């Protein structure tokens, strides 16, 4: 990075660290922070969408759909995350490739499963074996988003389902008395009011999601915890120009500060969101707001 970095052994502490902290590996570490933030920014809305659909399905009047929604919620909530990430992602990847295989390689005569091996034709590979590494990374990232969305979607569905039931029945009856259809009641009365009941549960999920990102490495995505472990590990001379002992404590301390800061920001944002959602609601919070504002 800097011109004086060519001989790190001869440097004083400040310069040594300025070189050390700008090596290529450290750049990957910094990029990983953006990766994690991007993952959260994409996953959270998608998971919320899954949750909303799941909750809608679970309270549907159409029986099979209701079963499907309930099964989704209880099945996914009951399976440990790590099982989901090890088994489900590989299965999902193989399902995609199997489907492409059926379409793209109709002439294939060998079995797809040969013992432990999963063999599809080259054209059905996802991404293609010849694709550059960044496409593999992006694909892995996409799989991660889908898996996170399914897992956290199930929890969100349960929270939203509860939120929908918490809306006072009187509100819905009033809507029906005004002649609104089921659909109108749902979208105009139920949904706007349920958020205030769902938000505490959802904010909990968000906090858990923030800290679940180390699971990413199971999918081959190098997240911040992976890099902290890798960079903090003992480095012996000969394999690096910057040998050092076991510094994982300092790297993890840095992560701790990052996560605490991130959690604090989330809390502030969620609190102000709560204030806005409470406005005009028939809850204790809404009542307090109404009394505080002079009319």
């Amino acid at each position: 990075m800097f011109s004086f970095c060519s001989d790190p052994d001869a440097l004083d502490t400040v310069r040594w660290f300025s070189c050390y902290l700008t090596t290529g590996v450290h750049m990957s570490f910094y990029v990983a922070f953006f990766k994690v933030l991007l993952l959260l920014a994409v996953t959270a809305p998608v998971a919320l969408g899954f949750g909303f659909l799941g909750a809608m399905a679970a309270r549907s009047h159409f029986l099979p759909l209701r079963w499907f929604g309930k099964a989704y919620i209880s099945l996914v909530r009951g399976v440990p995350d790590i099982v989901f990430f090890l088994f489900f992602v590989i299965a999902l990847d193989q399902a995609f490739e199997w489907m492409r295989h059926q379409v793209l390689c109709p002439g294939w005569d060998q079995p797809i499963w040969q013992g432990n091996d999963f063999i599809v034709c080259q054209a059905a590979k996802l991404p293609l074996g010849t694709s550059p590494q960044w496409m593999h990374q992006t694909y892995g990232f996409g799989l991660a988003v889908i898996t996170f969305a399914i897992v956290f979607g199930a929890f969100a569905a349960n929270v939203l389902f509860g939120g929908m039931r918490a809306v006072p029945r009187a509100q819905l009856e009033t809507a029906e008395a005004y002649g609104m259809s089921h659909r109108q009641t749902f979208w105009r009365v139920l949904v706007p009011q349920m958020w205030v009941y769902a938000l505490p549960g959802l904010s909990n999920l968000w906090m858990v999601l923030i800290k679940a990102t180390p699971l990413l490495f199971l999918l081959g995505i190098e997240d911040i915890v992976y890099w902290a472990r890798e960079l903090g590990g003992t480095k012996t001379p000969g394999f690096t120009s910057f040998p050092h002992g076991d510094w994982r404590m300092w790297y993890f301390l840095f992560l701790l500060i990052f996560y605490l800061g991130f959690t604090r920001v989330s809390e502030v944002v969620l609190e102000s969101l709560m204030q806005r959602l409470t406005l005009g609601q028939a809850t204790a919070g809404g009542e307090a707001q109404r009394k505080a504002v002079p009319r």
Partner: protein
Amino acid sequence: MKKLILTTAALAFSAGFALAQDTVRMGTEGAYPPYNFINDAGEIDGFERDVGDELCARASLTCEWVKNDWDSIIPNLVSGNYDTIIAGMSITDERDKVIDFTQDYYPPTDSAYVAASDSVDVGSAIIAAQTATIQAGHVAESGATLVEFATPEETVAAVRNGEADAVFADYDYLLPLVEASGGELMFVGDPVPLGGGVGMGLRESDTELRDTFDAAITSMKEDGTLNELLIKWFGEGTTTY
């Protein structure tokens, strides 16, 4: 365009599975110097990087390096996320049931115990080893208490912080750590010869790719380039072919 794809597919059939692809994805751990590690520039480096690149050059393959956790390195190979494992993996019967190996490109290795004091009795002490390694298997059978860790780094850290009495790992991995520790760590007990040498792991169905790499390894053994690389990374005293 569609016709082109079909033609390519037909060509792929006739040319066989492995050779049809000119890009081979090489899976490694990146945490086991001198075999494989991440260098300052953030790239995969080490003995296996050199060997792998040379093998690919000889077999006229384009190789792409991929990092994967040791824990899931075999499942991700058989499900096709990469095509080879080149991660200091010793050839054992158990692994051979699940995947295939090339011939060894590193002779059968010695494993050794490293402790923080020389009074440790490795037969009955608490020994740290990496999960799913031949060393972990050996400790489990030796009567000592085994504590397993996911990464090699953690096994050594366990000895430094007193969680384990000694660590059992490849001699070549431990040697630079002992040298750099300034007397804090030392070898104890006798080295144990373990495993059938280090080979490249491939899917059992990928016989053609295995034969290709086998031939390339043979040619590297014959003209002495493999020995040069062994000495470059493991020092003058190492076993060569």
